[in-house]
């Protein structure tokens, strides 16, 4: 079945609305859904493309889910496809969160809600810890990367250094160390 460009874009938009509405936790949680909806059902991309797309999404700035949606949309239907996929993936979150922000404001002073959030903040510590461990596992460790991680931790955590400056500086150090193969860094 050959769809026109507009038909394709409409389908893309609806698919990514669905993906955005049913993904909890963002980025990686979205991949199986994209695979089912876009690769298997529509055959618009192949499994191998999905890996490339994920690799690029990880190494470009921005939310992984948004990067992936934009990239898939572009592969399927060019720039317009990229635009509709991006709007599609963001729209459900936007509406849900916007509605929720009112609800939260109404109830945040209730004792039960304050008690619940006390517990929830403890759970968030565990979630951030989990994210930390899984990111640390993916990171190749050597002398330079250990120094960078420790440096970023101390500068941002204890001296309140500007995160963006720290990121730019560390990217440059990483680039230099990889180029000249200092301290176990390689390209």
């Amino acid at each position, binding site marked *: 079945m050959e769809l026109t460009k507009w038909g394709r874009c409409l389908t893309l938009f609806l698919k990514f609305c669905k993906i955005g509405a049913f993904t909890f936790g963002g980025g990686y949680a979205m991949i199986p859904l994209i695979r089912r909806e876009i690769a298997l059902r529509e055959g618009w991309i192949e499994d191998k493309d999905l890996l490339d797309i994920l690799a690029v999404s990880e190494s470009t*700035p921005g939310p992984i889910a948004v990067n992936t949606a934009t990239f898939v949309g572009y592969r399927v239907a060019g720039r317009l496809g990229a635009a509709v996929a991006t709007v599609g993936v963001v729209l459900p979150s936007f509406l849900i969160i916007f509605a929720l922000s009112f609800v939260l404001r109404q109830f945040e002073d209730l004792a039960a809600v304050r008690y619940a959030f006390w517990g929830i903040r403890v759970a968030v510590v565990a979630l951030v810890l989990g994210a930390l461990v899984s990111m640390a596992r993916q990171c190749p460790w050597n002398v330079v990367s250990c120094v960078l*991680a420790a440096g970023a931790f101390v500068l941002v955590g204890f001296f309140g250094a500007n995160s963006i400056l720290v990121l730019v500086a560390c990217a440059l150090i*990483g680039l230099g160390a990889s180029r000249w193969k200092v301290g176990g860094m390689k390209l």
Partner: protein
Amino acid sequence: MIFLQLFFTFFKIGAFTFGGGYAMLPLIQQEVLSHGWMDLEQLVNFVAVSESTPGPLAVNLSTYVGAETGGLPGALCATVGVVLPSFVIILLVAKFYEAFQQNPIVKGCMNGLRPTVVGMIAASLLSVGASAFPASGGMVQWGLAAVLLGGVVLAHWKKVHPILLILGAAVVGICAGYAGLLPGV
């Protein structure tokens, strides 16, 4: 002009976050606290809400900060701001992605960025920890939080779904509160 400020702040955050959701937390925290848009406790509460609602964590957080600060237009500005850099960059990269992935400069920068993001998430763990164990807490509350934290970490490690973890912790909080164990909360 709050809307422009929201847009540019989240544009900056979107342009400098590598690795999605939690990697964005240190940046959002720094910006939101320094502008006085929310306090730390509200932000940490909302990380949990973002995790338990569908959609990308980063987008949820941006929309929420925008909505809290500037209503509907604020939410729009923050969300468009955080998405726009990704969108433009992916469009540029999509055409040449093999060259991009193999590019030694990109690889070198990523070598530096990965450990930095790990260090920065560790830094935001400190402040998230401070919101769960506030100085005003007292021994009973800290002890209770420590036990709860141990349980949640264990459950998380056993791959219990994050939403269940959050719900479970909320129930423990409510029970502890009504049992009179959380006086200052």
